């Protein structure tokens, strides 16, 4: 099993220089062999530590809000998660643009990874938001502009990831995904604006009175929330990216492996059949 793999990576490719060239070029760019590294392990520990700090600040050290009571504590996750959901979309769009320019697999992997992580954070945003809405607004869901556009953002991301999951030629898939990813942020902005406009016609000032001046311990808790969620986001993004990278490499290596096996088989067959 190992010998054909190592020959394709290190040894000179034979007749099929085309197929074997790519993985070597990829491996040569300092690709990690696994998803962990010293830096990401430190990052992971920092993320865990900041989550612990957030739990203390969010649940113990910060006071309850005068109006929203304890449900305000959800905000320390909700607001940062929403911010990083948008950050993930931006990374996807920028990486898609870079892929269309450079055509290097790393950008494609980054676009996909960040869209996936963004979807996770969209789910967290919607989940914490509706949990918060129940005691505050008396309902899990209202047709508020932010809720509606976030739901549409989730479907945009799901569609993008569905396109990426298809079992077709990887380059064609990357091209299509990149065009779709490039349109992601413009679409998000258009949907956001138009939904905002749509709702503002019906109800002048919506129920969202989310940012009356936050101060003191609550501000600190929110900042810790941003730190913790940011670290988790980065950690997830790095690891998802590395998994995507390994997937990409293994796809190429599998192809080479299969080619080598077929060739060996063919050689074997002729040997057997010649005397017969």
């Amino acid at each position, binding site marked *: 099993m190992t010998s054909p793999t190592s020959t394709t990576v290190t040894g000179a490719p034979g007749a099929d220089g085309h197929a074997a060239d790519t993985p070597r070029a990829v491996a040569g760019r300092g690709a990690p062999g696994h998803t962990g590294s010293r830096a990401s392990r430190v990052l992971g520990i920092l993320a865990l530590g900041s989550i612990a700090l957030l739990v203390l600040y969010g649940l113990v050290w910060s006071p309850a809000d005068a109006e929203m009571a304890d449900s305000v504590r959800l905000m320390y996750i909700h607001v940062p998660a929403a911010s990083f959901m948008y950050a993930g979309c931006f990374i996807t769009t920028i990486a898609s643009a870079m892929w269309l320019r450079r055509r290097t697999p790393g950008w494609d992997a980054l676009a996909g990874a960040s869209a996936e992580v963004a979807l996770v954070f969209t789910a967290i945003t919607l989940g914490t938001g509706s949990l918060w809405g129940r005691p505050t607004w008396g309902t899990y869901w209202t047709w508020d502009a932010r809720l509606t556009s976030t739901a*549409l953002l989730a479907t945009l991301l799901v569609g993008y990831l*569905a396109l990426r999951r298809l079992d077709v030629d990887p380059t064609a898939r990357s091209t299509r995904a990149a065009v779709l990813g490039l349109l992601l942020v413009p679409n998000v902005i258009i*949907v956001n604006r138009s939904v905002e406009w749509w709702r503002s016609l019906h109800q002048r000032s919506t129920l969202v009175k989310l940012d009356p001046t936050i101060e003191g311990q609550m501000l600190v808790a929110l900042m810790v929330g941003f730190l913790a969620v940011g670290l988790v986001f980065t950690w997830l993004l790095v690891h998802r990216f590395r998994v995507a990278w390994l997937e990409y490499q293994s796809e190429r290596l599998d192809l080479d492996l299969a080619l080598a096996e077929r060739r060996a088989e063919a050689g074997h067959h002729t040997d057997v059949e010649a005397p017969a």
Partner: protein
Amino acid sequence: MWRDAALVAGRDLRVELRSRVTTNQVAPFSLLVLVLFAFALDPDRQLLERLASGLYWTAVLFAALLAISRSAAIDETDGVRDALRLSGLDPAGVFVGKAAAVAVVLLALELLLGVGVVVLYGVELAGAGLVVVAGLAATVAVAATGTLYGALVSGLRVRETLLPLLLLPVLAPVLIGATRAFEAALAGVPADGWPWCGLLAGLAVLYAVAGALAYGTLLEGS
């Protein structure tokens, strides 16, 4: 570019005319949707009349999905994509041509659905200027967006199921804008509708430009 566009649009429309899929299947389907809405909402004339704009544009979107899927399917058989790639036609022209053909088909369907809404839901027409302009802008927006997204999914085995998932969230602003504009026109306050018309026109231009720019990449890259 425009000559290429006319060529491609002519081809698509000719295929559509000869295959009669639009007249024999898509048009009856879209009328059926109007009838289904009445079943779902109780044939209460007042309710239907009040919701007519929204139901109308929802029906248009459903019909549009089929029309766009058809338009993408034309290029999938007999190696038409390869032929287009080799033909030396300007990709932007191909995009504009395909979008224009979809727009013509959509306009025909919209006219039919308009008659359907007037007859079945008892809508009284008003604000003709706004209705026509908003309708045209929305049609171009849907056709341009649809052609772009149709190219994104064309040739895939899951085209029929993936297209609505990708396209409908993107078309939500078009649905909102067109519905508001029509409501304003029918309510006799066209001044409320013109800003929405602006949104529709902006979306139409935006997606037409994006599609014209991206179509070459999509044509080459698959």
